[in-house]
């Protein structure tokens, strides 16, 4: 596996008690792809992301990044977390500067880079000196994205980043991620449990089932741009939605059926 992008081969992750959180996942994600990973809570989708990030060691199988086995976190794979995890003791600027300092960006250039990053995520540069608690949830998550982008990652791993935001803010944040993907060509793996969110943003949707395996991979044929207020009327939206729902549901039936027999 020498190709650019992410390769996942027979990936199994067990936590203590030998319960399989991920069970034999095979998946290839090309460089520059925008993939949503869709699944009900507890299906192991966050674990999948954490394994790609290098936070979680596989019990079996491997994750490859640009052909090399992933053995730990790396600057090339940036992560945006479920809850924003800005350092509450540090200002917005200091939060981003943390990543820049780690990447050995000279002090003299940091100020300029911070401004550029803030602009890239649609924030005014005046908020540099603000502290996280002074910002709204959406703004905090934007800073979180800016910090993840500070290292110019090749892959952006996003773990249900907008789950806690209100509907309007979520739409704006989706716009931001789509823009970033179109402008930078960064590979994006976006975890969500929201079918409509997956359809709106991603080029392909990986549906995960309760047993920690992949229930199906669906290409998303909808043309871009996909305006939030009109995407539902696009040709192909309803069938795609039904297809994803069916996949999610069929897997649940399977679980219930096997559950009854055991």
């Amino acid at each position, binding site marked *: 596996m020498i190709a650019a992008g992410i390769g996942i081969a027979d990936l199994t992750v067990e936590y203590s008690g030998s319960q399989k959180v991920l069970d034999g996942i095979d998946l290839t994600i090309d460089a520059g792809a925008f993939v949503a990973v869709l699944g009900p809570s507890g299906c192991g989708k966050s674990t999948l992301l954490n394994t790609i*990030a*290098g*936070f979680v060691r596989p019990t079996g199988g491997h994750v490859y990044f640009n052909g090399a086995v992933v053995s*730990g*976190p*790396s*600057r090339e*794979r*940036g*992560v945006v*977390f479920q*809850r924003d*995890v800005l*350092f*509450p*003791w*540090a200002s917005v600027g200091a939060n981003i500067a*943390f*990543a820049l*300092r*780690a*990447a050995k960006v000279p002090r003299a250039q940091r100020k300029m880079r911070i401004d550029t990053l803030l602009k890239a995520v649609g924030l005014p540069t005046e908020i540099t000196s603000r*502290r996280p*608690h002074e910002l709204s949830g959406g703004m905090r998550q934007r800073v979180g994205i800016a*910090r*993840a982008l*500070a*290292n110019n990652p090749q892959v952006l791993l996003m773990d249900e980043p907008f789950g806690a935001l209100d509907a309007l803010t979520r739409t704006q944040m989706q716009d931001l991620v789509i823009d970033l993907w179109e402008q930078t060509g960064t590979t994006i793996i976006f975890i969500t449990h929201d079918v409509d969110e997956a359809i709106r943003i991603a080029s392909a949707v990986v549906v995960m089932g309760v047993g920690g395996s992949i229930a199906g991979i669906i290409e998303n044929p909808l043309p871009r741009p996909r305006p939030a207020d009109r995407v539902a009327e696009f040709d192909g939206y309803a069938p795609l939605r039904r297809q994803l729902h069916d996949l999610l549901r069929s897997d649940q039936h399977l679980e219930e059926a096997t559950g009854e027999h055991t």
Partner: protein
Amino acid sequence: MVPATLAIRQLGVATVPKRLNLFALIPVFSLAGVVVAWDLLVHLHIFSPSLLPTPGAVVEAAAEMNRQGTLLGDATASFRRALSGFVVGSAAAIVVGALTGRSRIARALLEPTIQVIRPIPAIALVPLAILWFGIGEESKLFLTSLGVFFPVWVNTHVGISSTREDYLRVAACAGAPRHQVFTSVILPAALPFILTGLRQGIAMSLILIVASEQAGVTEGLGFRLDQARLFSQPDRLFACLLALGIVGALADQLFHRSTSRFVRWSREQA
């Protein structure tokens, strides 16, 4: 016509500060109440003045001691001893806490020993301190720094070892080197715990100073307390207690006020 909202706002401006002022006076009233009650206890012969002097007598004794130059000198001597024990003890505790909180090997090596020593009340170490270091200043420094060490160590250890996992993940993703993770993530995240420990350490240092000044010194509030007991001077004894209370409260508040802005974020979070 005055718009209703404006009228309400004007009313609000007029009434709110008054209520605030009354509220701010409550501590003054309560303190005054305690002094009056104390005075009555003696004047109504519920307590004998040889056991409980009147507030007036205590103030007189304090003024007299101040004229003789002892009170301020005693307070300074005690404060200096407490401070040096506090600095030595807490510096060692923060270093050890950072080690035991971060390094599994250091924790395994140090924790059992420290856990066995920790339940021993520091006051019980007075005889040991005298045996090892005599009754001089070294003995007091040993006792105070040891007493300060434990609360600061325990709190530092907990703070350093309980850094949120996702903060560490952010740092790992950024590829931050170990020293940057420590100084920019682990240490600031632990700071509220460390400051709590230091505050407990301040209280501990004052307790131990009074205990250790019972022997081997000719200056200090602990020494003066013992003298007052020896010569049956309850007014002086109470003046010393009052001075100790003031020194303790001043040290605690000074520390709290000068450091609280560094950990304001931990209260904003809640």
